[in-house]
């Protein structure tokens, strides 16, 4: 049964140290940023995070040392530059265990998790040193062909941002959807699903959305926790509602450079203002 609550209460209840979390979204789109900010506000640490393409979400969490283990194919600020805290965590502090995947291998591992198969074979990893770093990546032969077999990803919890949810927990996605599978892939492999939405709606409104041709992104039966977080993906983008806020991300990139300015950033944009004021 779906639990609907406030972001404060449900983040506190559900997100605990050592939890394995997959994030929806990718590359400055559709990241569950308000949940990330709430995790920081509540000072939750020791997270194990899976994200296909990490950006501001990961860099913020690394900046406050909330991540213990990280799985991704890329962590940076696309178009803008390096993710400062990612580099710092890896090069100087060595405070995070980072496991680099290729994009396809991570997608296949998400899909394997969703199917309940424990591992999956693919070819694109052949010849990559990424395989050598992983005891759980194996070179195997099937019918005379070589493959790399990677383990399924099965997080405890997926966190995604979406458009709307009705009172049953059906989650809706805008009519002309794009990029939705960046969120459904990491969601379907997880044991539980935490969704932040732009707005809560009534069941009646949900039915109207269906009549208007919206699709259900997740069904009530697949959803565990729902919170309302207007503009909850900001500063990542959520087309067609809002674009990635490249100006803000450049500001972040500059302020992340030094501890003093990063603290200012946190005070200003994570702790300092109410959610409404930020947007």
């Amino acid at each position, binding site marked *: 049964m779906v639990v609907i609550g406030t972001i404060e209460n449900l983040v506190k209840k559900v997100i605990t140290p050592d939890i394995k979390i997959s994030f929806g979204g990718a*590359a400055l789109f559709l990241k569950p940023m308000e949940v990330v900010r709430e995790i920081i506000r509540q000072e939750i640490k020791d997270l194990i995070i899976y994200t296909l*393409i990490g950006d501001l979400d990961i860099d913020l969490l690394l900046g406050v040392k909330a991540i213990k283990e990280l799985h*991704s*194919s*890329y*962590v*940076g600020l*696309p*178009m*803008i*530059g*390096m*993710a400062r805290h*990612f*580099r710092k965590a*890896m*090069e100087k502090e*060595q405070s995070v265990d*980072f496991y*680099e995947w*290729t*994009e*396809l*291998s991570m*997608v*296949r591992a998400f*899909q394997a998790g969703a199917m309940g198969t424990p591992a999956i074979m*693919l*070819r*694109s*990893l*052949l*010849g*990559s*040193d*990424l395989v050598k*770093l992983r005891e759980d990546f194996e070179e195997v032969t099937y019918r005379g*062909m*070589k493959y790399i077999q990677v383990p399924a990803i099965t997080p405890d919890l997926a966190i995604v941002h979406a458009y709307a949810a009705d009172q049953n927990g059906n989650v809706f996605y805008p009519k*002309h959807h*794009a*990029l*939705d*599978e*960046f969120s459904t*892939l990491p969601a379907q492999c997880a044991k539980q699903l935490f969704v932040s939405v732009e707005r809560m709606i009534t069941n009646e409104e949900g039915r109207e959305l269906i009549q208007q041709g919206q699709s259900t992104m997740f069904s009530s039966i697949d959803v565990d926790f729902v919170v309302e977080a207007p503009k909850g993906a900001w500063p990542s*983008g959520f*087309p*067609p*509602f*809002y*674009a*990635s806020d*490249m100006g803000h991300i450049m500001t972040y990139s500059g302020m992340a450079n030094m501890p003093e300015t990063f603290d200012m950033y946190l005070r200003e944009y994570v702790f300092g203002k109410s959610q409404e004021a930020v947007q």
Partner: protein
Amino acid sequence: MSKSTDYEPIDLIVISLAREINDSESCYTGIAIPSAVVAVQLARMTHAPNLQFFYGGYWINPDLDVDLFTIMTDTEAFVESISKAQGFSHLVQLYQYWEGPKHTLSFGIIRPAQIDQFGNINNSVIGDPHHPKFRFPGGAAAGDIINTCSRVIAYVPRHDVRTFVPEVDFITGRGSSPKWRKDVGLTDYQGIKTVVTDLAILEFHPSSGKMCVRSIHEFSTIDEVQENTGFDLEIPKDIPTTRAPTKEELDILQSKADPLSIRNFDSRNR
């Protein structure tokens, strides 16, 4: 740079990338490497209007008349573009063109942080991977594309010995070696065929798999290219000069394919 030109090196990189594209081919470009996105759109606006391509894993053949960056970052352009695309895909469908039953994509474009004489690329780490001296963002799909697209075009915004190394510190994606590809059964995928930089265009010798010079840009010299490369390049006797951008290419690039100059992100960052 020994000569002055009426265009920037990054312009020639983008235009040279576009020229590597043939009409009616199929391809994928990520959204995070600006010059690749611009080059594809420039090719479509010039000689390759029938390119079949996935943009951002969603649009198939998006709007031919607008720069692609705008589609992703302007919500009105996003909605507008939907009515002009030839089709709509889903991310998972795209991945079926990488590994799956469908035909192989003709090419992909990547931007390596390090590349060696055999076309191995490193977008991961310098030094011990567990205690890196330098941590790159990661390969994303670069390693996948090398083993799943028929050929790969690489570009390097700044040609120097940090990027062009004898042997990469870490193999994020395996190079062009025909022998290795034969041994492992990946002969349908040739690996990197061409590397476009701000000094030259490089390719790989078909049998040895070693990097060689195809042409040098009109504003650079062969000594400059060799000095900025950390290994001995095979250099042909008569080195062709890279064809300079035409006025039409430059016009379309500046006014339509990339009016916001997002290609400059590539020359600023690396």
